[in-house]
């Protein structure tokens, strides 16, 4: 009997089991799609969107309209999304006075509020290290300090954020050119082009890049509606983000949010190509250093000191 059909009970069961297993595995692999938020599904136009540098004006305006609609759908806020371009004759430089910083972390949270970072999981661009006096080794720093008041007598404070390098390792390693340096010195990410490989995060010696491991969560009432394509528009899960010197503010002549909030005036920002700018004068006259100079990253973020307090403590 079995020879006539060519299919025995045993081989039928084995074949059936294989088919069932294959189908089961296929369904299981697709299972996460069932939980996908419908507004996470890209439209055909969004899917076919070109790289930032390749979009013409019409395409950019369509992309900005898509972003605005998504923000409105998700947060109920009508945003002002723009594509703010860099200006001729401007190169941005940041200078931070280590003699003045008191480690109050106002900058960290002003940055989060300005740039629409995820609150849960928490993403912050600025990390303030509490450093023992007598060393500049960031490995000696502690960012989890929790004191009733700062500053502590025995420590100084060193905030670290993106150094906007002139020789950026993060840009070199990107396999899809989703990150690049703009003419005004700001390294940016096209969040719609990033594939989330995190090579740039590994390459950065300043630990300045952040990855959206989960869907970003921002309370709708805390959304900053002033947005730019290359800076603070809301990001998606699976893409990198980083400090952009608040380019939606600074390319319109304003100061970055971290500087505005600093209660002690430790943060200085401006155009290094203007010899009268605050940063140009700091670089000319102050004792300035860059972090990890041996990495040859050529940062546009400088630390400096005041000449004062020979005791290394408070003024007598």
């Amino acid at each position, binding site marked *: 009997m079995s020879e006539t059909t060519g299919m025995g009970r045993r081989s039928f069961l084995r074949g059936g089991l*294989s088919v069932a297993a294959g189908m089961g595995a296929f369904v299981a692999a697709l299972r996460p799609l069932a939980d996908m938020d419908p507004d996470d599904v890209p439209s055909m136009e969004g899917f076919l969107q070109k790289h930032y540098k390749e979009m013409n004006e019409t395409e950019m305006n369509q992309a900005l309209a898509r972003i605005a609609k998504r923000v409105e759908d998700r947060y109920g806020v009508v945003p002002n999304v723009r594509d703010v371009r860099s200006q001729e004759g401007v190169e941005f430089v940041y200078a931070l006075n280590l003699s003045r910083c008191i480690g109050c972390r106002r900058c960290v949270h002003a940055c989060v509020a300005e740039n629409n970072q995820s609150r849960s999981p928490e993403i912050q661009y600025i990390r303030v290290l509490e450093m023992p006096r007598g060393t500049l080794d960031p490995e000696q720093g502690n960012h989890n300090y929790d004191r009733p008041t700062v500053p502590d007598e025995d*420590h100084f404070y060193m905030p670290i954020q993106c150094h906007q390098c002139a020789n950026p390792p993060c840009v070199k390693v990107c396999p899809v050119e989703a990150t690049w340096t703009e003419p005004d010195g700001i390294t940016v990410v096209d969040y719609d082009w990033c594939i989330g490989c995190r090579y740039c995060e590994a390459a950065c010696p300043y630990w300045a890049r952040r990855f959206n491991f989960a869907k970003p969560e921002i309370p709708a009432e805390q959304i900053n509606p002033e947005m730019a394509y290359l800076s603070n528009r809301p990001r998606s899960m699976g893409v990198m983000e980083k400090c952009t010197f608040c380019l939606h503010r600074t390319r319109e002549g304003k100061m970055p949010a971290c500087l505005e909030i600093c209660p002690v005036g430790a943060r200085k920002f401006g155009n290094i190509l203007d010899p009268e700018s605050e940063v140009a004068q700091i670089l000319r006259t102050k004792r300035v250093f860059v972090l990890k100079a041996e990495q040859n990253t050529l940062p546009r973020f400088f630390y400096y000191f005041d000449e004062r307090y020979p005791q290394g403590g408070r003024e007598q």
Partner: protein
Amino acid sequence: MKAVIPVVFLLLAAAFLLNASPGQADLPGTPEFDRQLLQVGSNRDAMSDPPYAIQAGLQMTCAECHGLFDSKPGSGRSEHKQHGHISLSHGMNNSCYGCHSQQDRNKLILKGDEEIAYADTPLLCASCHGTTFRDWERGMHGRTNGFWDKERGPQVRQTCTQCHDPHSPAFAPLAPLPGPNTRLMGEPVDQDAHHGGHHNPLDLSGLKHAWEAQNHE
């Protein structure tokens, strides 16, 4: 034996289906804090020029009050008098008339002889803190708010007394805002238990503990 492979696949499929969607894990977010602290403004109000106080419902300038009740030179302040709330902690500069004019109460006194207006306070500070004043003039000391590009908008410079209390100029300590709270960083280490408060930000040993804590709750 060959049936083992499909069975393994089936078990895997079942496992994926049962626990397919971790969804949005309950990840640690930022603790709540007073969002008013993120309002940009000067740290304190500078004195008006001429300065005044409101006494018994009347707005009186310094000179008006001192014209009625003059204080004798060298009598100093006491807690029971008008300026008792001022605590003077300005290093060697520990007398009222080091900065305030004894003749014209609406004026300050520069180097003991030249009267200047309250609006020119930075000049008075400069008579001792010359290097700091030089830095401030160039924008290297103190707060600069508004626009870095003065052609596109106003720039606001804070003067000395908008940050420093002239009677006690050291910057008052502040309570810090919440520290980082990402899962990758694990639990904050006890600063003092670790030698010298050392914490390696690249040490991911906290990851394992955080992961275990997450999955055993």
